[in-house]
């Protein structure tokens, strides 16, 4: 006779529930329903593969003949990103504070959040097209587009950081008889500063990517050049431009990631 009583009623792990199956079924149904609308033709990838190989071959070797011009345009793109982010940062500080539910009553933070939502919901490209009409072709339209869109994102991130602060130091400042704004300057800002810096750098990084795209609608920088060479079927030049963009964006990403590590 065994000294350990045999388990009569073992606790089995739960079976795959009906709910899980339903969710998977729903996902598959959604994919199937979208097939027609998305014009999915995977067979053509096979059929036209020789065409595509020829097309890809046109890209190589990349043509760097105009590299000075490309680099100066890349620099313009960087400058668009820097100014777009800087203006957004300046606006995001007050807007982010106003959008924080722990600092303002609902009738202030709710409307501010809705404004930020709309800034964020509309893509930079759309803003760029609108600003090109308003201020004409060129980098300034790009700066304005990035400014509006980035303010929407950055202020939202800022307010989330403010909402997560420890309220006790703020109360400590309040108890000295400080004014509301002094409470924020002493009690809130020092607490959120590292996160705010990190978010700003992250947006700068994202804006270098966006700035190369907004150029395609005429808002200045390397995007304009890229759009022209693509339309003119200059694939070797396109390849050179893409390489420059990839290297620049990677470089900025790496530097910004390093800096963000220092702050957080």
């Amino acid at each position, binding site marked *: 006779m065994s000294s350990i009583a045999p388990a009569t009623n073992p606790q089995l792990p739960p079976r795959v529930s009906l709910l899980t199956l339903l969710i998977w079924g729903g996902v598959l149904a959604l994919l199937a329903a979208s097939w027609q609308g998305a014009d999915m033709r995977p067979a053509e990838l096979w059929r036209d593969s020789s065409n595509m190989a020829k097309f890809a071959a046109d890209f190589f070797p990349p043509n760097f003949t105009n590299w000075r011009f490309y680099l100066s345009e890349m620099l313009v793109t960087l400058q668009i990103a820097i100014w777009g982010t800087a203006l957004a940062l300046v606006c995001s500080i007050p807007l982010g504070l106003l959008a924080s539910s722990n600092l303002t009553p609902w009738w202030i933070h709710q409307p501010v959040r809705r404004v930020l939502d709309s800034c964020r919901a509309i893509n930079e490209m759309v803003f760029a097209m609108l600003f090109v009409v308003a201020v004409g072709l060129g980098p300034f339209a790009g700066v304005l587009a990035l400014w509006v869109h980035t303010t929407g994102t950055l202020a939202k991130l800022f307010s989330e950081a403010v909402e997560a602060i420890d309220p*006790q*130091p703020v*109360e*400590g*400042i*309040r*108890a*000295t*008889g*400080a*004014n509301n*704004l*002094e409470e924020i*300057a*002493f*009690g809130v800002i*020092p*607490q959120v*500063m*590292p996160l705010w810096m990190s978010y700003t750098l992250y947006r700068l990084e994202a804006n270098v990517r966006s700035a190369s795209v907004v150029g395609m609608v005429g808002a200045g920088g390397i995007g304009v050049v890229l759009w022209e060479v693509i339309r003119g079927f200059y694939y070797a030049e396109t390849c050179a431009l893409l390489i420059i963009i990839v290297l620049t964006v990677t470089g900025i990403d790496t530097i910004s990631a390093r800096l963000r590590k220092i702050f957080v």
Partner: protein
Amino acid sequence: MQPAIRVTNLVKSFGNQRALNSVTLEIMPGEMVALIGASGSGKSTLLRHLAGLIVADKDSASEVVVHGRTVQSGGRLARDIRSVRANIGVVFQQFNLVGRLPVITNVMAGMLSRVSLIRGMFRLFLHSEYLLGQEALNRVGIGERAAQRASTLSGGQQQRAAIARTLVQRAKVVLADEPIASLDPESSRRVMEILATIHREDRSTVVVSLHQVNVAIKYCPRTIALRRGDVVFDGPSTQLTPALLRDLYGAEADEILALPDHISLLQERTDNVVPLHSQPSPATQAAQTG
């Protein structure tokens, strides 16, 4: 003489829970008063009302007046609450310093009510003002820590920095809400000594809420005891015998009579032990003979 603190019919409820039940009391300038009671008896709630950090029930006749100036009345803060708060220094259980700012900057927050908004917001203080801050830090014995970030200090040092902030504030009334509840024995003793010194040298009024009655008896001539939102005792601390406390608190008495290590250490260092028990408990006996 005008009382330093006058509380009339203070009523506060949290939901259906009555936290303060029509509390009325007066504290004269220059008194050092202990506020004792078990957890949940309303000590912190009362102190936070005195500092105008929370308001009493809206439909009550509650009133708090500090040095002749209304802090709140009928559940509404005074219009000039900021300048009233400037006279009231608050020391919190969790210190409530801004951890990322240097100690000296935390202490300079005590100046905020006396400088312009622009200078306050951008932390632009004059050299002479910084001297005041440094002097306050020297007084609480952490002058050499001035440039360090507050978060790098030990709990006891942070609490002393918080006291220095009330010194820079030139607070006539210092409210300390469980200032030693999060501290080790030695730090607790130093913090209590500093509060007693400020009270003695600056003639400021000090109200300190405490968990244990022994500390109250050692440092504060007068004790106000709360129980579930009612003032159940207000008088000389020496009258607080274990028998009376058992009378007042019943089973809850054990919590405030308990002598954890750091309280017995406080007693050990007492030069003139105030007689607490007619028949000393084993713990105090050990402390006195030890």
